[in-house]
């Protein structure tokens, strides 16, 4: 599996990717399909564009922090 660092991806490309995946974005936050700030499913914090993870499994968008990563790996299995 290829891991791409979003640090090297310009904001407009991040936003375009999110839109392709069915999400949205304002200037700070990732938005859900109702236009509301998307909350990390594991720690309930709004996911910021500058600190997000997009992981396989119905394109899960999470806040980038160890607890969310550990929960994701427990739920969806290890990344190859």
């Amino acid at each position: 599996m290829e891991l791409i660092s979003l640090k090297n991806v310009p904001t407009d490309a991040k936003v375009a990717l999110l839109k392709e995946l069915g999400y949205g974005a304002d200037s700070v936050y990732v938005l859900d399909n109702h236009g509301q700030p998307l909350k990390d499913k594991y720690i309930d914090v709004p996911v910021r564009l500058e600190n997000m993870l997009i992981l396989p499994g119905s394109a899960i968008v999470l806040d980038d922090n160890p607890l969310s990563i550990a929960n994701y790996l427990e739920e969806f299995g290890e990344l190859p």
Partner: protein
Amino acid sequence: MTPTPDEEAIAGVTKGALEFSSERIKGWAARLANRDIAFIEDRSSFDVVADQKRNPEWSFYKEYVKTKELRVLIRIGLALRKLESGHADLQSLRKNILHKHGKKGLHVAQLVQDGDLGAFIGTLISKQMSKADLGATIEDLLLNVDKYVVFIKSDIDTRRVIDSTAARINANLPPALLICGSKGAKGAAETVAKGVMKKIDGYELSTYQDKVKVVYLIMKDDSPDED
């Protein structure tokens, strides 16, 4: 108005970049669906958790601990151990654990981070327990971490802690209880462990210690009575 050659050139470059991006982004989305790609921020902070899959200690816990929440907290404890003290992520990680899993969750992660759980398991293994019993004892301890693990601070009232800990053991008869103390609290931990042992029956005491910490393991004595 007719665009100047420069404007045409810029428009051409922009359009080319957009087309490239759009094509590439569609490709990324397709690869995500195939579990062939993932997007992260910082490789090192991702790896501190993901790389635990290669840690033999994690492989052991994964085999014996079945409760998902505990497995997450164990993995986080191992990650906490890897993060250098003073690392910016450390404080926010503790805050997130507290928010999501409460003090109990923080204590489970701390037990793993400090190596106290490893010391406890080492003692269990030396007792040649069955795999099922080993797993059940570990889970029981972690699920009841607030009842069966006592973290000693240097300024505690040792007599009060001895009484409350002994009362807890006598009321619940847990298979094991840990008393952990580090740095300046090592002496207080010893006082508590020895004081508790005087007030309970059917348990044995063993000790694990290194330069920084001491762990007293109070475990049910399952050896047959001597005639």
